[in-house]
């Protein structure tokens, strides 16, 4: 793996020269029987995979009208073609979003449209052969479902939904990805993506209490499984485990401490992430979300706050209400969802992002900061794709962009924006999202980070930027891994609440 090198920065960042077949291959590791069966999928590729795949595709097309529209609507205008970080980094024409989608669209035409059934060659329709299925597996695991291309599509085709459908079809015939499916199994069995059992979690949290006490002299608590707490914090399990993630966890705890908020973590629902979305499987998505409802009901909490996790915030903001009753709009016949809706305190947003929580408290003057504590940093902000394009924060359009930046500016003196072509709704994926944050895809991850690294290099050279803040566990892990390959220090990446943690004044406000 050490032989993976960073691609050269583009002199003029336009459409790269094509390298057909550059990323052909077998794709990421395929899930084993054991991993697949543990979450209810066929163990390995079933004998009648062709018929079952087409049947599943038909089900998805009738269940999600959006998918049928996306299959029919594309006019191949090419607006999306150079918008994908994986295409830019790999130069493989099949990673142009339009071409990647056409891997499925051509099969759709063959089986679900009249011209394709009778004159397949005339309309570019293809049989679903084993080669095509393998091609799906490979290239639909070269899309991080970040939806940047969708921003530029005149028809608003949601490419991520096509990738999700493809992965769902693959899973339904026993051709799932090891990384995502293994992680989903761990959430169901243990409660979080990492597989941290409660005793390990408790041991880690006790250690953090000691560390913060040592550093600040203040008893900041990291409570877990506390009945009757006001706030239940749901955060990615990486926050308990990895660097720099854990520094943001310390930041959340300090904010709760400084504002006198009663809060708790949960050992059973110790995961904000929901890889059910990445594999496009509604049942897995719902089952993972229901753990949080069960715990919220059991602990009797009034508010649910979500930590720094990109896709979790999309799931929480966009889907939790109907999936589990966190927020408005639960099924009237879903007893427990109704129960939870009544239990939660609707004077507050349900769910609420930790950045919304902290920013509200800053606006209420409930927090004070020693901004000089962050003076060693010249900071920029990387918008995470699922927060930017799949959710919102606050009460105004663009809150998901402004609120994290407002927090940074409230806790630090030096803030610089990267090129506007690459921020806010036009942000680039870190290169590791959507279930691709695995070592067997490291080459893809390095190449996919190219457009972000180009503009980071620009602000580093021009403004001396030495810290890139972000609010996603995947972004943090991906950048920590790949930035040294681009000649940056891995400690240049961190969370927004890591900066909060550096500057927050405890005990004297």
């Amino acid at each position: 793996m050490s032989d993976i090198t960073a691609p050269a920065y583009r002199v003029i960042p336009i459409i790269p020269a094509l390298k057909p077949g550059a990323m052909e291959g077998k794709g990421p590791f395929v899930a084993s029987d054991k991993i697949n069966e543990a979450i209810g999928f066929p163990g390995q590729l079933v004998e009648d995979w062709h018929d079952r795949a087409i049947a599943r595709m038909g089900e998805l097309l009738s269940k999600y009208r959006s998918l049928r529209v996306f299959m029919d609507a594309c006019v191949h205008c090419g607006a999306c073609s150079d918008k994908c970080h994986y295409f830019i980094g790999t130069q493989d024409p099949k990673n142009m979003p339009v071409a990647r989608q056409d891997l499925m669209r051509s099969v759709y035409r063959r089986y679900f449209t009249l011209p394709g059934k009778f004159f397949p060659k005339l309309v570019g329709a293809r049989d679903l052969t084993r080669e095509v299925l393998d091609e799906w597996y490979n290239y639909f695991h070269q899309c991080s479902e970040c939806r940047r291309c969708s921003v530029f599509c005149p028809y608003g085709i949601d490419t991520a939904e096509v990738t999700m459908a493809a992965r769902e079809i693959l899973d339904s015939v026993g051709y799932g990805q090891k990384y995502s499916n293994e992680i989903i199994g761990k959430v169901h069995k243990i409660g979080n993506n990492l597989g941290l059992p409660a005793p390990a979690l408790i041991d880690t949290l006790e250690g953090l209490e000691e560390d913060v006490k040592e550093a600040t002299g203040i008893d900041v608590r990291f409570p877990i499984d506390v009945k009757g707490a006001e706030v239940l914090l749901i955060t990615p399990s990486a926050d308990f485990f990895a660097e720099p993630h854990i520094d943001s966890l310390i930041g959340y705890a300090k904010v709760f401490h400084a504002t006198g908020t009663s809060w708790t973590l949960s050992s059973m629902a110790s995961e904000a992430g929901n890889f059910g979305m990445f594999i496009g499987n509604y049942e897995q998505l719902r089952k993972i979300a229901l753990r949080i409802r069960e715990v919220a009901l059991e602990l009797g909490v009034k508010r649910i706050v979500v930590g720094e996790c990109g896709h979790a915030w999309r799931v929480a903001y966009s889907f939790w209400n109907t999936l589990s009753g966190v927020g408005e709009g639960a099924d009237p016949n879903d007893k427990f969802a109704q129960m939870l809706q009544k239990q939660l305190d609707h004077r507050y947003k349900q769910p609420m992002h930790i950045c919304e929580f902290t920013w509200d408290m800053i606006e209420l003057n409930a927090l004070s900061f020693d901004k000089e504590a962050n003076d060693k940093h010249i900071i920029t902000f990387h918008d995470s794709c699922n927060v930017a394009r799949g959710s919102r924060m606050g009460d105004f359009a663009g809150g998901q962009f402004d609120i994290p930046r407002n927090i940074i500016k409230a806790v630090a003196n030096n803030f610089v924006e990267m090129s506007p072509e690459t921020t806010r709704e036009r942000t680039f994926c870190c290169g590791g999202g959507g279930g691709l944050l695995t070592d067997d895809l490291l080459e893809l991850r390095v190449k996919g980070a190219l457009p972000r690294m180009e503009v980071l290099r620009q602000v580093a050279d021009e403004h001396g930027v030495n810290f890139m803040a972000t609010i996603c566990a995947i972004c943090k892990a991906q950048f920590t891994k790949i930035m040294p390959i681009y000649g940056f220090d891995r400690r240049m990446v961190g969370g927004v609440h890591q900066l909060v943690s550096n500057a927050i004044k405890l005990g004297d406000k």
Partner: protein
Amino acid sequence: MSSIEVDGNTYETDEEGYLTNLADWNADIANYMAKTENITMTDQHWEVVNFLREYFDEYQIAPAVRVLTKAIGKKFGAEKGNSEYLYGLFPYGPGKQACKIAGLPKPTGCI
């Protein structure tokens, strides 16, 4: 399934060379794994590997990076209690690379 051969014995591993059965592990396997990772095991490496195994025995998971650095610092001297030291020993990341040598499953997630 993949496998490795050490001193004439065959051991099952996953695709990335992590040992499938924890109980198979021994010092020879650790040395073999280290070699495939271009690492020469020293006393300092063994301190980390042994701690990982102890921790795993108790908690069924590898320790968080912070827990690891703190424990190593406490046990073997404050100068060793930081992630730079651990990255120095295990350049590919102390979590994943040291776990592999210690015969533990690879920690995966958003890390």
